[in-house]
């Protein structure tokens, strides 16, 4: 049986795993990809490849935030689900996994953000 290639380089995995969940933070909206993220979910020192994987996780989680499933992923549902499942194994302590459901306040903020573009 072949083992799946690790998503994160070891140095990135360690950076992500060392992040500390801060429940007092407010969400930020990425107007490019249409997802929420919190600043304790992004290490300050990480490679572009590492950011790429986090970006996949943020988009996958945004489906949950909108009451959707992986099959609703706009680009590649199978790939997205595979990355998500593997990330749970590789970076179980990533603070982002603690935010699979939004508070009422955050839900309101997200709905407002999705209504119109915030990049131009």
């Amino acid at each position, binding site marked *: 049986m072949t083992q799946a290639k690790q998503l994160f380089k070891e140095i990135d995995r360690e950076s992500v795993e060392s992040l500390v969940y801060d429940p007092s933070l*407010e969400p*930020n*909206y*990425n*107007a*490019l*990809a*249409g997802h929420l*993220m919190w600043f304790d979910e992004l290490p*300050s*020192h*990480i*490679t*572009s*490849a590492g*950011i*790429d994987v986090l*970006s*996949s996780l943020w*988009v*996958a989680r945004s489906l949950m935030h909108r009451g959707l499933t992986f099959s609703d*992923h*706009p*680009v*590649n549902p199978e*790939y*997205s689900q595979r*990355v998500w499942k593997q990330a749970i194994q590789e970076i179980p302590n990533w603070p982002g996994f603690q935010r699979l459901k939004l508070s009422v306040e955050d839900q309101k903020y997200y709905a407002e953000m*999705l209504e*119109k*573009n*915030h*990049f*131009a």
Partner: protein
Amino acid sequence: MAVFRPTGGRFPCKSAGCEAYEKLTGKLIEKLAVTPEGLAVKVPRDDKLLDSVAKMVGRSGEYLPERKPMFLAPGQNKILNEREIEAFGGLKKLESMTDGELAGIGLKRFEMPKLKLESDEFGNEISIKAFVKGDNKAWIHASFPQQGTMVLEHINIGSMPEGTGAHLLAEALKAHGILPGDRIILKTVVNPESLQAIKEGALPQNTLISGMAGKALKQLGFKANSYRYEQNGDKLNIVIEISKQ
């Protein structure tokens, strides 16, 4: 063309951090210039040295964006576009008007607040962030995974007026003294507006997000040569090949 990391005056050094390191490196260069005979001599500014010092210390601190004439549309959180400016008599006319005169026709000047800068380097990779002071939702994040390529990772204009995204992107790059050389990748353009446009068959150059990037490029003295969609795993990106104007 490589990623630019100008230090020798391509952009004026405005941020406190930038000034500080220039002063520091200037002093270092002057004090360390000693001839084999032991005579202290003043040496000319060495951009390569300044550049390597900049890479070591990174760009941080605050940056005052270049003043760009922007006018808030009447009753809206939106700045006037070129066509609307023409309808009000043109840019020169609006620029020459006092605040009171502008208020008389329902307009108000808008200036982008200071930017707070953060940067990180990982081998040859560079990652930059710029946060709009006083607006904790407005920020930008770009990475430079290889020479000549800039990846736009995050952008949000927060509560700034609609139409300010391009200026935010351009000023963030100027503030960090870094420019894309060959291409910009707009990563994961799956926001509702772009997705809808793509589903309707919009060409990449006709999406609003590409329009924003194109305006920013113009401000930076670049032009877009081609646009294309690119699917990479679960990502849908827009790749813009660029060159100097």
